[in-house]
């Protein structure tokens, strides 16, 4: 891939001026890369920008606030960077944004589904991505899966595979795609009666172990050490590991992200017991889109509608109630 080489060249140029460049590097097992912090020129050799680059490197930027930091971004990651800038959580002049034309990233759940019972991380012996397929060895057998069948759902509704904001771009930047997000992922659940929907969440939340990986993997959950979930005073959530408190936290998380969430899906990817928590954020995100016409993470000058107010909202007819 010429893009990968061009990316490396850009990073080497940027490196002397920044604390580090955050991208992706080799992970602990073949199907999984890892966020990667490049500080020295020799680190750049191991950069991986491709279908395994699932992590959102924007997550780490607030930690580096005040220090000039480079970040390699997929389109979805760049929207998180924009959102962080728009909320003044990082400063535009502190970040050097490096984009590339992303062709989508894989969804480990879809790979697992393709491979049957032996598709979990740790079971694959070797994995190599080529242009259109994932080739892997599993139990001594060689398999090839078309990439199109294992790309994350967010990629199929992605309008901005290149970065929406960048200082450098490796390869050809393309115009935004004409893709419509019709929220089909929510349709099945929403067709159910309310009681059944609640039973769905009861079942899902019964698996929750309250590890808060969903929160810590979220690039916009910036309270970090001061989260309401761990506050004793006031005491919003009990330590009890029951459905009620587990769900309560998810509702808090989703509400705080309404109009800010860019749908990167890291909360759901991080969940060790595979709870579809992105559905909650997507549902509230859609509500904000419909009410306020606001799309998070596209304009660094915009304000999330729930972080501001207007005397008269355009779509909320208070006086007509």
């Amino acid at each position, binding site marked *: 891939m010429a893009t990968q080489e061009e990316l490396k060249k850009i990073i080497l140029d940027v490196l002397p001026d920044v604390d580090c460049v955050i991208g992706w590097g080799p992970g602990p097992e073949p*199907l999984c890369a890892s966020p990667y912090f490049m500080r020295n020129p020799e680190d750049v050799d*191991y950069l991986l920008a491709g279908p395994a680059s699932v992590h959102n490197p924007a997550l780490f930027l607030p930690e580096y606030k005040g220090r000039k930091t480079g970040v390699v971004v997929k389109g979805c990651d760049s929207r998180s960077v924009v959102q962080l800038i728009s909320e003044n959580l990082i400063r535009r002049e502190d970040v050097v944004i490096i984009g590339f034309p992303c062709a989508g990233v894989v969804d480990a759940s879809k790979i697992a589904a393709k491979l049957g019972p032996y598709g979990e991380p740790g079971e694959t012996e070797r994995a190599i991505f080529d242009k259109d397929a994932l080739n892997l060895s599993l139990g001594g057998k060689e398999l090839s899966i078309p990439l199109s069948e294992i790309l994350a759902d967010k990629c199929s509704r992605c309008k901005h595979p290149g970065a929406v904001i960048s200082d450098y771009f490796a390869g050809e930047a393309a115009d935004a795609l004409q893709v419509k997000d019709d929220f089909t992922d929510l349709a099945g659940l929403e067709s159910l009666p309310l009681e059944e929907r609640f039973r769905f969440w009861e079942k899902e939340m019964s*698996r929750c172990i309250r*590890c808060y990986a969903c929160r810590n993997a979220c690039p916009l959950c910036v309270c970090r050490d001061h989260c309401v979930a761990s506050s004793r005073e006031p005491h919003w959530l009990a330590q009890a590991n029951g459905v009620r408190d587990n769900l309560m936290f998810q509702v808090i998380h989703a509400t705080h992200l309404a109009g800010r969430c860019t749908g990167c899906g890291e909360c759901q990817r991080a969940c060790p017991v595979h709870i579809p928590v992105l559905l909650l954020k997507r549902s509230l995100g859609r509500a904000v889109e419909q009410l306020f016409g606001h799309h998070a993470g596209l304009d660094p000058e915009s304000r999330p509608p729930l972080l501001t107010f207007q005397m008269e909202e355009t779509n909320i007819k208070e006086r007509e109630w």
Partner: protein
Amino acid sequence: MEASSKFIARTALAGWLGELSARFRVWAPRREGRAVLYRPFDPQAPEDNLPELDKKPTESAKHIIFPRSEPLINFRRKRDPEHPGQFLLDLRVPEAPGPSLIFGLPPCDARGFMVFDPVYNGSGTDGQARDIYYLRRRAAALLIVRSCSRTLSTCFCNWVGGAPDSAEGADILASEAEDGFLLEPVSSEGAAALDSGLLVPADENRLKAAQAARDEAKKTLKPAPDISGAGKALLERFEDAAFWKGEAAHCLSCGICTFLCPTCYCFNVTDETAGANGVRLRSWDACMTPLFTLEASGHNPRQDKAARLKNRIGHKFSYYPELHEARFACVGCGRCIKSCPSGVDIRRIVTDSVGLTQSPKPKAAPRNIPGGKE
């Protein structure tokens, strides 16, 4: 030992677990979507919740003996009729739990309880500090360990004294043998549980088949590096902030590693009240969170994730072994690696600390690189 070994056909398994359900609360791994979790076995619908024995459970079995959150006392506040300005507390101690049986846990999960034991059985304090809540569940639990028929690339039990067929901590060791399982009693309680008409004495062929499968599984583990110097090396690295910042750079500081870990035993105690009623809960705590070390003054001696990760690794590979007969507080189950959303690899941190590898500046040829071929 072999003379009393039994065999159970896969088809008879649900029936046997049903039988055992009369004496124990039976737990077994069950698949829920992509996750495999330990769930109570339902003897009313045995065929619907057959144990998932081919896959390593996503979580460890520790919550069965050491619940995620456990009520210690229920309390209710009421007005003192003698002194109307004051309150009295009604206290109620929850019923003691009955005996439990865990079927089909991998050897690493059983060894995890061996790490818990010396912390909670008072052995380090001349019997002064005995955790009655842990000990009563532990004493009444029967562990039927299933030896692993294969290992994952994230498995490293052989680094820390384990093996895919280790019987340490088990009451019965179950091994796959053709169309069922060979059941070898390890403790006298285990032997007693094998007294069932659904089991048949193990014949020579099945003993051989089970042994062959176990030997095969062992071969799939990569050789273990020598990490005997980890305890000392980690102490020497204690002040090396750059080392820990490098290791923790991609860590999310979440609780996945701690909560999935079979050996992490820390807890917190909180009073949860609703109106006049309340419960004193003991629940899992995680050293990867800021609240773990936050002091009442507001000062936090572990300010960042690097300090927290340093404690987690140091505890497992240095401080704990120092206190407890050189046993690592890690059983090499690899769940922290497999489920880490950010690719943190505890093995790598340990080998980095003893100088066998060097991160985050990979100078040698990298390990398997996803997407690496161009």
